[in-house]
């Protein structure tokens, strides 16, 4: 595709533990087009955040990329030198953290932290303090916070969770960028605020014509916000489809299970959910990682890893027994 902006190819990320390597991200493929909103959906601990953090090489030291590439405008970020990478971090891609309270440094004011993001966004240009301040104020205003001057002078502990999440978004958007990665931006918040934040993010991204990667564990959230969904399970992308197609015709048993978990207004009570839990990543069994929980598993599922098969141009699935 010509307008492919960011693509992850066969990415494997392992964590070093005392019991051996935890093979958390197990060959993920993911593409984001220019101006596209992409969702990455899966339950907790399935490697969504690890995959996304690999893009900006923000992972903790114990995580290391075993293989794969991450191409941004055709260049492999994982092989890039430090200076080039810093350029991308400063101007092209930003990631909004899952925990706004942990993402802000407790001993500096919000303004100080946002100003540093602006200051280093263009190393050739010297920003004056007033320029940086007015950019910061604009960013804070854009996330629907009144009284930006007071907020910029505040320390993180003085603000509520919803406020901090907005500030994290403002920080990501203060410099014009091509890609915004939002890591479950509503998780730490109550549902009303969560909804506001999602809408805000959606509108801002549309307004600035950016690409968005939205990580979430809720298909319901993804449905409202994104154009295309990657369903992840235990470090594998198991199904990729346009949002509408996925809801109309889910193919992977895991996707079907997840869809079952979205509460429906038409009643039917609480769904049964998916039996079992994400398997251990240390010495995982060969074959499909979902096999042990899968209602349709057969002998081959336990022996071979299913590869991605295209059902049509926009819909592919990694399963031997899909409908």
């Amino acid at each position: 595709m010509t307008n492919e902006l960011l693509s992850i190819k066969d990415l494997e990320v392992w964590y070093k533990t005392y019991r051996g390597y935890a093979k958390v991200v197990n060959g993920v493929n993911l593409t984001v087009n220019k101006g596209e909103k992409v969702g990455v959906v899966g339950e907790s601990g399935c490697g969504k955040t690890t995959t996304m953090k690999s893009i900006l090489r923000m992972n903790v030291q114990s995580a290391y990329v075993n293989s794969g590439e991450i191409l941004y405008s055709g260049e492999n970020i994982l092989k890039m030198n430090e200076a080039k990478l810093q350029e991308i971090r400063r101007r092209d891609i930003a990631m909004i953290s899952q925990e706004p309270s942990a993402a802000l440094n407790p001993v500096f004011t919000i303004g100080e932290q946002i100003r540093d993001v602006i200051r280093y966004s263009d190393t050739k240009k010297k920003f004056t303090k007033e320029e940086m301040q007015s950019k910061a104020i604009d960013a804070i205003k854009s996330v629907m916070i009144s009284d930006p001057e007071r907020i910029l002078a505040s320390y993180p502990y003085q603000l509520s969770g919803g406020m901090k999440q907005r500030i994290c978004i403002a920080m990501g958007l203060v410099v014009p960028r091509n890609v915004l990665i939002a890591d479950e931006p509503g998780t730490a918040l109550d549902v009303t605020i969560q909804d506001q934040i999602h809408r805000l993010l959606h509108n801002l991204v549309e307004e600035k014509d950016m690409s968005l990667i939205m990580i979430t564990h809720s298909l319901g959230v993804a449905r409202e916000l994104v154009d295309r969904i990657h369903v992840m399970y235990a470090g594998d992308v198991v199904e990729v489809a346009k949002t509408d197609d996925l809801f109309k015709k889910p193919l992977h048993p895991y996707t079907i299970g997840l869809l079952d978990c979205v509460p429906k207004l038409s009643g039917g009570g609480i769904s049964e959910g998916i039996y079992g839990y994400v398997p251990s990543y240390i010495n995982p069994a060969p074959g499909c990682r979902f096999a042990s929980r899968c209602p349709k598993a057969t002998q081959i599922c336990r022996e071979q890893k299913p590869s991605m098969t295209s059902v049509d141009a926009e819909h592919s699935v990694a399963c031997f027994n899909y409908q």
Partner: protein
Amino acid sequence: MLRFLSRRLLQGVFVIFGLSIFIFVISRIIPGDPAKMALGPRATETAVEQLREEMHLNDSIPEQYYYWITGALKGDLGKSVNTKRAVVEDVSEFLPATIELVIVSGIILIVVSLLLGVLAARYKDTWIDALIRFTAYIGIAIPSFVMAIIFLLIFGLVLQWVPVLGRLSPGMTPPPTVTGLMMVDSLIAGDMAAFWDAFEHIILPAISLALGGLLQEARILRSAISDNMGKEYIAVARGYGIPNNKIMNKYLLKPSMIPVVSVMGLDLASLMGNAFLVEKIFNWPGLSRYGLNAMLTKDLNAISAVILIIGLMFLVINIVVDIIIAALDPRIRLGD
């Protein structure tokens, strides 16, 4: 800030008042007759009795305290039976030497501990870190007076790098007294030879005094930095392309300083107390040596004065440390 200061100073007054009662009573109920000790074994009964009367030792302890505190409030801490001089005079002679030692020691403590802590964190799990860790375990485990003796033997006697006793070499003429701090005075007088000599004299006692605390704080800083290194906000700063040294010196160092400064404050305040044996070993003509002598000979007024001054310094340093911590950590407010 002002409210905080005035409240802490008011609290301080009560603390010092309590301390004065405590030390006054303790020094008087421990066995031994100060008058007899002052006059020596061959003094006559009448002479001893006369001195007892003079020192109000025959009165009840509350009465004695009343005499002492009314004098103290007027700036008269009584007479030392040892030196036969006013205690205030003794103190003003010996205090500057101790203050100089504590200041130099404090500077070494702060600078070197931060340096070693950052170094150990930066080169975590390399030989540099291991060397600092190894030195730290030894340095923390060995008390400062043992360290002082070892230093004295190695650097003073075997290697003869530095002189070992007193504040200045015997041949040196001390600079005219302005502040009482030998190094400052010699700088004021423009006497570089005296400055260098004073520096050589102070360096060993200052290092042995600072070493234990210094190494402990280096370890605390190292672990605070390496804890914070894994924090989300550091990953975020990295993700925004903030330069590495900026992350190290700003985003990482400031939050990591908080636990260090609290412990460092305690250590700086205890330097005064710890100086006792180090001053004795290096024959440093300071307050602690004077106080130690006073305790061994039960020189009541001198003991009270020395303890009070150490208490006062402890108080002041604690207030300063609280202010610094509040400046570092915005979550702490000084209660105003």
